[in-house]
């Protein structure tokens, strides 16, 4: 059997997905037996021009991580889509925009002003901003244009599969690679993870009755070691988050923050969590309910921590 041809690429990302790909450790040797990596800017010596020369659909699989937020990201997404039979959104940035997607609460101008003018360490009395084209004495220098809105890979090109997580855990990565190697591919659009249900299903914490009178911030009290964090009033996002990670954060006594995205069948993770919350508040008094909910600062940034660009909201309207 011919070896699989795999391409890996990163767009607007932190590099954690690259480290996660390497985190399959010794299994990487097994991968090398059955697959050739034909493009991987971080790990190997190939050029953009080489990708352009490839025939359409000559790459079997592209694992694409990172969101789309400038011209270069978009160009590479379209190019790799054309060259690849299967396009995978690998990791939360490509899947749903992730934490950099929180930029969609603001716009490009506000982001630039903060970085280059307002920050207290910045010394920029002439209010110089980076330019996409700038003439220096020797010639002209160019920079890619930063977009106003962070987009997901799926909003840019057709995506076949999704590997969730910030970053995907080792076992999730391997699950996807095994499916590719064996050729036993799930239906198009599948989110590849060990779970279709919530993180709670794999969390060892004891769940009893969820009735909440008060929400607590992580710094306000030490959680009881074995009881469900949400039942204790911590805004644990496990109920609205797809499992597969192994519930690592709750086992380290920290709330789930939602990085594996929505559970199967849910479009908007934030709305799902909100509806879950409203059903566990222990009150029938509208005023009391309002008071309890008001204790949650930054609901939008908390409920859409990883999914703002892919949510029904997409972005804030900035005046």
């Amino acid at each position: 059997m011919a070896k699989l041809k795999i391409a890996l690429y990163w767009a607007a990302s932190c590099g954690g997905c690259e480290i996660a790909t390497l985190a399959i450790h010794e299994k990487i040797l097994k991968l090398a037996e059955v697959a050739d990596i034909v493009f991987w800017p971080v790990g190997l010596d190939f050029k953009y021009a080489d990708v352009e020369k490839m025939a359409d659909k000559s790459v079997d699989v592209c694992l694409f991580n990172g969101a789309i937020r400038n011209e270069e990201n978009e160009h590479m997404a379209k190019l790799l889509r054309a060259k690849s039979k299967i396009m995978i959104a690998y990791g939360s940035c490509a899947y749903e925009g992730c934490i950099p997607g929180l930029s969609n609460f603001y716009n490009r101008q506000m982001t630039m002003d903060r970085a280059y003018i307002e920050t207290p360490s910045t010394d920029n009395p002439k209010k110089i901003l980076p330019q996409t084209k700038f003439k220096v004495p020797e010639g002209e220098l160019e920079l890619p244009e930063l977009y106003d809105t962070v987009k997901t890979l799926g909003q840019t090109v057709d995506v076949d599969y999704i590997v969730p997580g910030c970053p995907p855990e080792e076992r999730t990565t391997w699950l996807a690679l095994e499916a590719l190697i064996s050729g036993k591919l799930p239906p198009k659009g599948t989110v590849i993870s060990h779970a279709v249900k919530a993180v709670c299903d794999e969390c060892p914490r004891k769940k009893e009755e969820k009735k909440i009178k008060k929400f607590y911030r992580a710094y306000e009290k030490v959680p009881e070691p074995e009881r469900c964090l949400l039942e204790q009033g911590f805004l644990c996002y496990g109920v609205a988050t797809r499992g597969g990670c192994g519930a690592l954060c709750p086992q380290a006594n920290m709330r789930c923050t939602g990085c594996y995205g929505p559970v199967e069948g849910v479009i908007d993770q934030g709305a799902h969590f909100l509806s879950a919350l409203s059903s566990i508040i222990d009150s029938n008094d509208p005023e009391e309910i309002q008071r309890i909910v008001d204790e949650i600062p930054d609901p939008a940034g908390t409920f859409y921590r990883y999914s703002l660009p892919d949510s029904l909201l997409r972005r804030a309207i900035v005046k």
Partner: protein
Amino acid sequence: MKRITIDPITRLEGHGKITIFLNEDGSVANTYLQIPELRGFEKFSEGRIAEDMPQITQRICGVCPEAHHMAGTKALDDLFHVEPTSTAKKLRELLYSSFYVTDHTTHFYILAGPDFVMGPDASPAERNILGVIGKVGLELGGAVINTRKQNHWIIQTVGGRPIHPCFGLPGGVSRAINEEERAKIEEIAKGSVEFAKLTLKVFDDVVLKNKAYLDMILSDTFTLKSYNMGLVDKNNKVNFYDGKVRVVGPDGKELCKYAPREYLEHIAERVEPWTYLKFPYLKKVGWKGFVDGKDSGVYRATPLSRLNAADGMATPLAQAEYEKMYSTLGGKPVNYTLATHWARLIELLYAAERLLELSRDPEITSPNIRNIPTAKPDEGVGIVEAPRGTLTHHYITDEKGVIKKCNLIVGTTNNYAPLFMSVRKAAADLIKPGVKITEGLLNRIEMAWRPYDPCMSCATHALPGQLPLEVTIYDAQGNEVKKLSRGI
């Protein structure tokens, strides 16, 4: 005018672009190093809840999330006016030491090592980690993989997750470790100390005993006389997790020593219109352009500058290596950029020794890991030494602990000006009229840059391996006259 573009740069952890402009005679007119990305964390952190900042800001960089997590957590201690318990501080430093072991190992064997072990002129097909393993032996290759894997286990065990840990809280950490875990950490630490010693021996055998390499290290092309920055403990010894920031001049004299809260008195950042990254400099010395020397506020925050800024190492084996380096290279400070690789290995040994010390600390398994803050949050600054430079996080919140303002001066950003200057100097020295521009020559230019271990995902708030390199030369009319590529 001719133009050479190196885009993107190989074995750089992130995106970057070098453009070299040539005069008609083939000499270098000027060089630019551009960073093509901005990620905007300083803006979109506004409105978020403060206690989540260690987890939010670590998404600046998946290569060194532990550094952001730690700087953010320390900023929270300050913001909430709470002192962490003694065990919490030790657990944080233990995780951080383990992180340094993995990070410095990755850099030496995968990013920098190939240049020295295989030689700068080796074919790109050999000049990589596989070539290194082939030359130094499979056994050492296995040790590299094993050291990284075991230390990642420590990071997951202590920090909650293998990448992007979640354990930092104002006043402490979220999880204690038990005796069984401690014993395993101690075993891994012992192995890491041996691995670091072995790595220094490899460096000694391959690099220091090779006169050609030693001459290259000592050459003017790879020398830059800048200020040196690094975090030091109360005895002025190198510390990664805590202490004051000390700055020492190219002449070895202390310029200043500041606490995190004082950083704005000492550091300012300059904006240039041709790049998304800012150029920090020493405020009291001032910005004099891209020049080195005592009158220029350009500073470096690298393994070498940390050793230059300190009076020594806090652990015995690393201290012995520290003394050896300075006696070999002619005393302090060392301004030879390529010696940064050596300094990094001395830090690797220190990190492993410190990990071992902490794993044996009687307090390390104590369940007393958190102090609950009682004061209202307002403003906090946290500084740690990230592998790629001094990392500063500064948050201002309302009384509910919601971020109003956030300022970040990130590892590689500190080194942007010197990095640019080192590349420019190497290009000007190596590209001469009549000299053929070969792949090896271009790799030497990149060698001026690799000691900084630049991480542009980190610097742009915006990895390991080898990025593609393409060099295109244009004539004065903008016509392509030559194209050079590396690899396929």
